[in-house]
């Protein structure tokens, strides 16, 4: 056992591990109910087609089939899904909300869009019945390429709109045009950044059960946001919120798409379970996951950076297109993140950013780990690298010259962030982080000695170093309830779901730290609306920050209650008492005192009078809503070796210096970073969703879509810096997405450095070996 498992900052082992290792942890696909029926969906094979008719009569006759639903069978339940995130109030903003229907009616707009739902005795039979359904469809030309999509006369994804533009947003600060006239150098480039699948290892799954006598609906859902799902379902199904319970038990990885709502399946299973009076289950298969779970995709940037001769940034102008897929229920979170994150840790006084979101006949887009931030980082970091080359400056040096100094916080960027609050950096100290990363990777020695030596020996090695900041931990709020059981166990209930971030341990550590109990004595329940019913969900790296702060506040309130009860019991003023090792005792004394559990029992008497104003038990609920998010930051560095013959890249070292404010459990923080870096490496070199011009995804399986594995991900050397956030009591900042944000920019820089002399300039991510090979063949530097 580590020295002190009550320490909030200790590397304690995770409370959840034993359950996960033995297979006892319950995921949605593990839920089994008596009399349960199984669901399969008939999905569109076309990216764009007019539906002429759906005939399900043969499917309905198949033995073992309980029901088949098409849009026509849904009646007035067939309504467009709600808009999840309305856009922030940016002046002049144009946004067309076009959300999906539960089942397609007149048109299908992406491969995988559901057309019919079959309910049967087994999944095998349900899938057999899918083949019985006859769909009459008239294929239409598919919209894919973003520029072609906006050309006059392009086929339209949504017929009622005048074009495929889903949104248009301009944000400016300063006066870029006049700054540009003072520039010694303007670097203008077209930069492409494509994203891939989130590919959580657990597919989505839903189980819905209607208990008719109790009039209660229970839904197990692999969602990152059980409470909003509960609230929305109650509204749409005409039930009270108290009649609906949504449980997101263990969730096997989220990475963004599991916050999307409402997926058609989420709308349909509860509805049909109420109708059929039997529990229903649907588990996505991997192919469905590639077509029907949201993804993040390409942006095309035409960007320029204006600089002085000595490498100081005067301003940046950026125009970009953003692929939002066939519908836009998640609003503009991703492109606004891109817009805001582009500014990075740098002092950029003049900024002119404009984007157009574009509807295409592809799977819906919603945030995936990083959520557009990496696109922004890619643009600013690449432009800086190119500027350094043009000016004959070192890449670390040009960054140093532009970093915001420690005296510049809080720093107001005068534009709006995705949460509708102004983009303000709370705290940070960027220069030491950059120096530390350069030091850890041995930047100077590498450039001075190692690289020339390797080059002389005919080896192509390169180094990269990239900075980022990340807006994390945004509002609105989360809550937590902390209860001391008479047996001494402390229970913590909070509304956020957990998808592998170690929340069971992180929240336990926060509470254990306040109450001075063992972390293993704290039992955390997350993601069950019956346990806690207020909150929003796990997104924007906010779980530990926002819910963690609520846990902290609730624990403090319980602590006060414990002291008050003990003060009465021991007849001693509360300020002379303290909590130690799960007991309350006289401050500084070595006597045993009273156990917290005993105090809990004492505070819940069966007989006798209770003083007015006291609440029973040792329990408290607290909420935390930050005014605005906290800004995490970091610097990544890597060394690569490239084989120009095969275009294979070997990452030999990877260094992360990051600042997520106060850290709760370094082991968990590092795990989050490792995972993010692995995801970022995949994004940079292995993962790309390849669509053809008919909108067909060509690599919808793990055979064809490569996730990075053990051999692709190097050991990651990590250093932590702590600039506490002033926006929450513990000083926390988020970390869940950080690892993958600068990786693409870094990879491009390091590979380009390794290929010095080949005339290669990398302006796009992902770079597959074959794409890199192409670039090597033709030399791409303008």
């Amino acid at each position, binding site marked *: 056992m580590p020295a002190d498992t009550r320490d909030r900052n200790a590397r304690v082992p995770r409370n959840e591990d034993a359950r996960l290792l*033995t297979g006892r942890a319950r995921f949605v696909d593990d839920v*089994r109910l008596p009399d349960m029926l199984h669901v399969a969906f008939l999905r569109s094979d076309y990216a764009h087609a007019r539906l002429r008719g759906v005939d399900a009569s043969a499917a309905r006759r198949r033995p073992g089939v309980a029901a088949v639903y098409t849009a026509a069978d849904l009646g007035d339940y067939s309504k467009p899904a709600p808009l999840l995130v309305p856009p922030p109030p940016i002046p002049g903003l144009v946004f067309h909300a076009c959300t999906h229907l539960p089942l397609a009616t007149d048109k299908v707009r992406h491969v995988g869009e559901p057309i019919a739902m079959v309910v049967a005795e087994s999944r095998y039979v349900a899938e057999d019945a899918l083949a019985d359904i006859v769909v009459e469809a008239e294929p239409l030309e598919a919209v894919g390429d973003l520029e072609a999509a906006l050309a006059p006369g392009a086929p339209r994804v949504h017929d009622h709109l005048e074009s495929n533009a889903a949104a248009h947003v301009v944000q400016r600060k300063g006066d870029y045009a006049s700054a540009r006239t003072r520039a010694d150098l303007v670097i203008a480039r077209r930069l492409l950044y494509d994203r891939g699948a989130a590919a959580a290892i657990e597919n989505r799954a839903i189980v819905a059960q209607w208990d008719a006598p109790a009039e209660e609906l229970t839904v197990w859902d692999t969602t990152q946001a059980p409470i909003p799902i509960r609230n929305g379902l109650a509204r749409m199904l005409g039930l009270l919120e108290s009649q609906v319970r949504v449980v997101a038990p263990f969730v096997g990885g989220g990475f963004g798409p599991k916050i999307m709502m409402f997926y058609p399946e989420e709308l349909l299973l509860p509805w049909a379970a109420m109708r059929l009076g039997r529990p229903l289950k649907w588990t996505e298969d991997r192919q469905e996951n590639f077509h029907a779970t949201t993804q993040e995709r390409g942006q095309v940037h035409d960007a320029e950076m204006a600089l002085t001769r000595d490498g100081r940034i005067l301003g940046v102008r950026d125009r970009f297109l953003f692929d939002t897929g066939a519908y836009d229920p998640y609003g503009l979170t991703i492109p606004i993140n891109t817009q805001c994150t582009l500014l990075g840790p740098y002092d950029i006084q003049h900024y002119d950013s404009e984007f157009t979101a574009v509807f295409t006949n592809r799977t819906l887009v919603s945030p995936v780990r990083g959520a557009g931030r990496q696109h922004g980082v890619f643009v600013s970091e690449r432009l800086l690298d190119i500027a350094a080359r043009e000016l004959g400056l070192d890449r670390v040096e040009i960054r140093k010259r532009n970093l915001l100094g420690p005296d510049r916080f809080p720093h107001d960027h005068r534009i709006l962030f995705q949460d509708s609050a102004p983009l303000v950096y709370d705290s940070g100290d960027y220069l030491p982080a950059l120096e530390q990363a350069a030091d850890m990777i041995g930047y100077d020695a590498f450039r001075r000695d190692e690289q020339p030596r390797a080059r002389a020996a005919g080896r192509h090695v390169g180094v990269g170093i990239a900075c980022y900041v990340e807006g994390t931990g945004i509002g609105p709020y989360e809550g937590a309830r902390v209860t001391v059981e008479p047996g001494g166990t402390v229970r913590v209930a909070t509304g956020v779901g957990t998808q592998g971030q170690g929340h069971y341990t992180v929240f336990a550590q926060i509470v254990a730290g306040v109450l001075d109990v063992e972390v293993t004595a704290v039992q955390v329940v997350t993601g069950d609306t019956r346990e806690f019913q207020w909150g929003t969900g796990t997104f924007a790296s906010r779980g530990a920050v926002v819910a963690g702060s609520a846990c902290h506040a609730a624990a403090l309130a319980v602590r006060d209650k414990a002291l008050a009860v003990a003060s009465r019991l021991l007849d001693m003023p509360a300020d002379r008492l303290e909590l130690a090792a799960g007991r309350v005792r006289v401050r500084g004394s070595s006597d045993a005192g009273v156990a917290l559990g005993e105090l809990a029992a004492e505070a819940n008497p069966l007989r006798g009078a209770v003083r007015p104003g006291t609440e029973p038990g040792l329990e408290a609920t607290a909420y935390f809503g930050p005014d605005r998010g906290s800004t995490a930051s970091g610097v990544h560095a890597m060394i690569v070796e490239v084989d120009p013959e095969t275009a294979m890249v070997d990452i030999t070292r990877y260094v992360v210096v990051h600042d997520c404010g106060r850290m709760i459990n370094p082991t968990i923080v590092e795990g989050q970073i490792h995972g993010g870096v692995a995801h970022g490496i995949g994004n940079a070199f292995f993962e790309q969703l390849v669509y053809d011009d008919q909108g067909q995804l060509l690599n919808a399986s793990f055979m064809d879509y490569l996730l990075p594995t053990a051999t692709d991900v190097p050991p990651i050397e990590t250093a932590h810096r702590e600039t506490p956030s002033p926006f929450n009591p513990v000083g926390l900042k988020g970390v869940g997405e950080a690892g993958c944000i600068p990786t693409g920019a870094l990879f491009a820089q390091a590979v380009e450095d390794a290929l010095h002399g080949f005339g290669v300039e990398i302006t796009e991510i992902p770079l597959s070996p074959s794409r890199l090979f192409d670039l090597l063949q033709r030399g791409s530097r303008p």
Partner: protein
Amino acid sequence: MAQNDDPAGTVSRRDFIKTVGATSVAAGVLAPAAPVTAQGPAALGPGPVPVNLTINGRARTLQIEPRVTLLDAVRDHANLTGNKRVCDRGTCGACTMIVDGRTVYSCSTLAIDVQGSRIRTVDGLANGDDLHPVQEAFCAADGMMCGFCTPGFVMATVALLEKYPKPTIAQARRELDGNVCRCGTFNRVFEAALSAGGVNRG
């Protein structure tokens, strides 16, 4: 993955896919070969038939259709839900079970084909609250995040250690190469695999 008994100089599945290129692999290139029955097509099914399986040392007879996979038989009919279904196509390793001492992708194995074999799943590893040494090692190394890939990794590691009680990192990499983890726990999984002790040859 670990179905290959010849440790020397073999190309792993992963290397194969990488060299051929992500989008040019025809689906099904590595699909498991269809079972060949000497007597010609068996007159079994399509309805449920009795299938006798020995799972974690316990013999049981399940009434299932002949087309039911080992994974579905174990999860849905024997109610042992420890091993997970992820790709259902033999590409991720989450469903890894040990059958007669060798790892198999249970999603790509028919239950009816492993009658009479010794089937081990993650559910049977621990002895009550006493974790198996591999599970202990995963705990100590914090070798999981969301834990959904973990049952497959644990089973593959058990098989690795039963084959090589003191594996080299190269052996570990090769034997665990067929397992995918999106949370990026690889480094810690290897730490666990190399540090686990007390596993006997199975």
